C-alpha cells in the first residue's frame, strides 16, 4: 500500500512541479516522513532525487517545444551554483534563522507581487521572443535561490520563477520552463551529497520517482493550454505556503 501512496504523492508533486517550475518537495517530504516513516534528512534526499526526475522529464518536453530559454538558464545557473557553494561555506558564519527569515520575507513579497501582476506576462511567447532586462537583479535572485537550496535542500524554483518573470521580463510560462530546466542541476548537487552520506532510501525512492515522472509528463502536456494568469495566481498561493514553511523553520531554530 505504501509504495502506491508514495507513487500517488509523487504524481501530484511531479504535476505541480512541471506547472509551477518548482520541485514539489512541499508535497513529497511530508508524505515520506508520515507514510514511509523516513527521517527528515532521508525524506530530503528522496525529494531531491524526485526534483531531478521532475526537472528532466518536464524539461525534455519544454526544450522540444521551444519554451525553455536555454541562454538565460545557463547564465542564471552559474549564479545559482555560486550561491549554493557560498551558502555551504558561509552557513556557519551567518545565523541560519536570520537567513531563513530573510528568505521567508522574499517569498511573501514575491507572492504579493506575483498576485498583483498576474495576467501581465506575455501569453504565447516562446524563448527568445522578448527582451531580457535587469540581469543584475536576476543574477542576485538566482544567487539567493542557490543559497536557499544549499541551506534547506530545495530546488530554489520559488525564487527563480519570480526572478525571471517579475524582474527579468520573461513570459511566465517561459520562466517556469526555464526554472524546471535549472532546478535539476541544483538538486543534483545536493542529492549527490545526501546519497554519499547513505541517506537515500532506495525502497522509498523507486515508487516516488515513478509517480513524479508520470505527473511531470502530464504537467508538461497541460502547461501550454493553461492561461498564464491562472498559473501565476496559483504560484502566488504556493509562494505564500513556502514562505510560511520557511518562517516556521526559522522560528523552530530560534526556540
Amino acid at each position, binding site marked *: 500500500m505504501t*509504495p502506491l501512496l508514495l*507513487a500517488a504523492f509523487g504524481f501530484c508533486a511531479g504535476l505541480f512541479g512541471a506547472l509551477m517550475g518548482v520541485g514539489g518537495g512541499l508535497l513529497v517530504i511530508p508524505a515520506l516522513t508520515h507514510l514511509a516513516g523516513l527521517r527528515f534528512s532521508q525524506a530530503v534526499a528522496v525529494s531531491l*532525487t524526485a526534483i*531531478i*526526475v521532475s*526537472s*528532466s*522529464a518536464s*524539461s*525534455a*518536453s519544454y*526544450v*522540444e517545444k*521551444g519554451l525553455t530559454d*536555454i*541562454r538565460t538558464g*545557463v*547564465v542564471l*545557473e*552559474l549564479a545559482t*551554483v555560486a550561491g549554493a*557553494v557560498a551558502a555551504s561555506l558561509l552557513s556557519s558564519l551567518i545565523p541560519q534563522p536570520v537567513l531563513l527569515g530573510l528568505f521567508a520575507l522574499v517569498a511573501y513579497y514575491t507572492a504579493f507581487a506575483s498576485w498583483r501582476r498576474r495576467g501581465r506576462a506575455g501569453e504565447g511567447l516562446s524563448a527568445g521572443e522578448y527582451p531580457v532586462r535587469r540581469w543584475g537583479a536576476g543574477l542576485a535572485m538566482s544567487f539567493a535561490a542557490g543559497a536557499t537550496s544549499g541551506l534547506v535542500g530545495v530546488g530554489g524554483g520559488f525564487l527563480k520563477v519570480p526572478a525571471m518573470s517579475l524582474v527579468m521580463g520573461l513570459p511566465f510560462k517561459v520562466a517556469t520552463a526555464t526554472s524546471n530546466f535549472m532546478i*535539476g*542541476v541544483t*538538486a*543534483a*548537487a545536493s*542529492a*549527490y*551529497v545526501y*546519497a*554519499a*552520506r*547513505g541517506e*537515500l532510501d*532506495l*525502497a522509498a*525512492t*523507486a*515508487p516516488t*520517482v*515513478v509517480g513524479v*515522472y508520470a505527473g511531470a509528463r502530464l504537467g508538461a502536456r497541460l502547461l501550454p493550454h493553461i492561461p498564464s494568469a491562472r498559473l501565476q495566481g496559483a504560484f502566488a498561493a504556493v509562494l505564500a505556503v513556502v514562505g510560511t514553511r520557511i518562517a516556521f523553520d526559522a522560528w523552530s531554530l530560534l526556540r
Partner: protein
Amino acid sequence: MRRTVAAILHVGTAAGVGLCAAATLLYAVGSPQAVKVALLGVLALFGTPPLRLAAVARGFMAEREPRLALAALAVLSVLVAIAARAAYGYLL
C-alpha cells in the same frame, strides 16, 4: 542543440524511471535484486543533469557562443567536483 538536449533528458529519465519501476515490482515480490536495480536507476537519474550540461556546452560551442559554453562548463565542473568529493567521502 535543442534536439540533443531533449534526447538526453528523455533517455536519461526514461532509463532511470524504467529501472525504478522494475525495482518497485521486485521490492513488492521480495526479490533481493531490487536494491541493485533501484541503485542502477538512481545512478541513471543522477547522471542526467551533468550529461545535459555537457550537451548544452557542446551546443553553444558549435553555435560559436564560447562565453555561454564556458558558463555551462563551469557549472558542470562544480557538479562533477561535488560528486567526486561526495564519492570520496563515501569511499573513506
